[in-house]
């Protein structure tokens, strides 16, 4: 079952799915494994595994710091692959890679996609590849039946959304607001207009992220999108109160 179908099927049972995020190697690779285990057990529906990059242009301070520490602790691409492979084999939800263009580009888009396939990763989120420059990337992914996830922004025009949704597959990642990850988003404010436009632009499932940090945020987008994405907040919780805290946090969102 491909990613899109998985999401649609799962949505039959749940109003909204939950996608969480970790940075591979942060605080350590062992912790990464345990974090995934905790999250999966707590009921998340899909996960992003971020491969750290030294120039994380679109990340906010929390994820940036996590990436940096992971690299300083000696995280290599090889270690990321190994850990991801272990994760995919042990847990039965879809996992995606999140990273920046250069990580894929340096390895080669095609070898990288082959590696993802071999490991069992279902797709990838790369925020600094725009549709215009995505051809090699999407071709490599599609050849391996993997999903390159693309992003909408609140200031994407309707026409632009069309272009984007045609380039990507799996689902669309709706960035809830301008800015980087990890800042507050006021979900009580009306972002419904943006999400309605997004919905109209594509038949792909929609995910929304950037600033979701409690059940109320999720409730606010319920009905508009298929997936709520928790990024920064779970790192904050992990830093503050460990795995147990993460378990409690994820469960509180359901």
């Amino acid at each position, binding site marked *: 079952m491909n990613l899109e179908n998985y999401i649609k099927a799962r949505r039959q049972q749940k109003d909204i799915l939950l996608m969480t995020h970790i940075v591979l190697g942060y605080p350590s690779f062992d912790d990464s494994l345990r974090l995934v285990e905790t999250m999966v057990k707590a009921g998340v529906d899909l996960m992003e595994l971020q491969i750290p*990059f*030294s*120039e*994380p*242009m*679109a990340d*906010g*301070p929390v994820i*940036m*710091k996590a990436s*940096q520490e992971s*690299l300083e602790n000696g995280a*290599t*691409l090889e270690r990321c692959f190994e850990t991801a492979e272990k994760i995919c084999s042990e847990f039965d939800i879809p996992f995606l890679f999140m990273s*920046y*263009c*250069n*990580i894929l*580009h*340096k*390895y080669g888009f095609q070898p990288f996609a082959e590696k993802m396939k071999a490991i069992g990763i279902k797709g990838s989120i790369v*925020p*600094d*590849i*725009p549709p*215009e*420059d995505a051809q090699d990337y999407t071709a490599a992914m599609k050849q391996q039946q993997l999903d390159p996830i*693309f*992003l*909408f*922004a*609140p*200031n*994407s*025009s309707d026409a*632009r959304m069309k272009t*984007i949704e045609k380039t990507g597959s799996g689902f669309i990642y709706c*960035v809830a607001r*301008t*800015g*980087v990850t990890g*800042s507050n988003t006021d979900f009580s404010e009306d972002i419904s207009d943006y999400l309605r436009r997004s919905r109209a632009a594509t038949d792909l499932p929609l995910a929304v992220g950037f600033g979701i940090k409690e059940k109320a945020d999720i409730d606010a987008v319920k009905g508009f999108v298929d997936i709520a994405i928790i990024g920064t907040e779970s790192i904050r919780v992990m830093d503050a109160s460990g795995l147990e805290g993460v378990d409690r946090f994820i469960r509180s969102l359901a």
Partner: protein
Amino acid sequence: MAEGKAGYFGEYGGAFIPEVLHATFEELNEKFTEIKADPDFWQEYENLMSTYSCRATPLTYADNLSRHFGGAQIYIKREDLNHTGAHKVNNVMGQGLLVKRMGKKRVIAETGAGQHGVATATMAAKFGLECTIYMGEIDVLRQRPNVFWMERMGATVVPVKEGTRVLKDSINEAFRDWVTNMDDTHYVLGTACGPAPFPEMVSYFQSIIGKEARRQSLEATGKLPDSVYACVGGGSNAMGIFQGFMDDDVELVGVEAGGHGIDTHLHASRIASNDATVGVAQGFRTYFLQNQDGQMNETHSVSAGLDYIGISPLLANLADQGRIRFESATDVEVIDALSLTMKKEGLIPALETSHAFAQAFKDAPKMRSDQTIIINQSGRGDKDIFTIADAFDDPKWKQFIIEKARQYES
């Protein structure tokens, strides 16, 4: 200048930006296309540069150096005489005019050595814009004098505590600001790098150097130079002067930071060394000094302005085409060249600039006396006093600082 796909130069360039900046770049591309087609704009730009800075900057004949080496006649294009002390102001004032056209109220910029930050703060004061400068925390500590001036001109200087806390990290941070505030804010990128249209746009504004130099060479010597030398950080001063001679039978020589030597990995030579590979970072595709995983390396140079990880996509392409010869100069060669230039000509090139001098000094003696070269003096060195005094390990300077500190502490 672009060929093939818009924003690309050969296989380099592009605009690898988050979706949220798409509309901003669309507007920027549109406005840039508009001003390029508008002869009034260039006229307005030249007027501004000739009344606010001192363009045309002179072409100085270095008679003592020419005699000293006994080879080519050496001419020096004096970007150091610009307001704020370097070529950086050409780009910044050009973008300032663009900001006015776009009606934005705020500018942000990255800065490493501080030169571009000072230029941007200056432009913001002049144009009445709000201004935030991102600067790696390490650079803030090293380059306090520049921070002082930026703040005095009303800019907010934000020390970037992320990453390696140097230039590239301040670029990331500036982008983070931009993705949040793109509606009222323009990011004044400081060199011919970054996502399209920046490499082409910065080069466009800097082309004023080459236009003048070409004309001045003809006036002064009746012919074009045989070779033109420029140091290469991001590549803006090099592209600036090279563009005056691109279609001529003139050798173009770009000089990168050789640091401790290109065999030591402690350098910032993207083309002259074999250490760089093609990558995509900070919004564009070019040669980067990166490891096999695609993580960027730390670089080293005595000059804060040349230690960037990437190089202008325009230069990468011209290197592929063999149009530009790339060389590198080591820290030691650079200090020697600086020292000689001060003693022989009373000129103080910036440490960045001194790289171009170092290579020119290697080549000039081998040339005939009826041949001429131009060195682009991209900036003046007197604002580098803390670095240069350290490079010379000047004991009286150290004593002065120690005394001064004592005063402050008492």
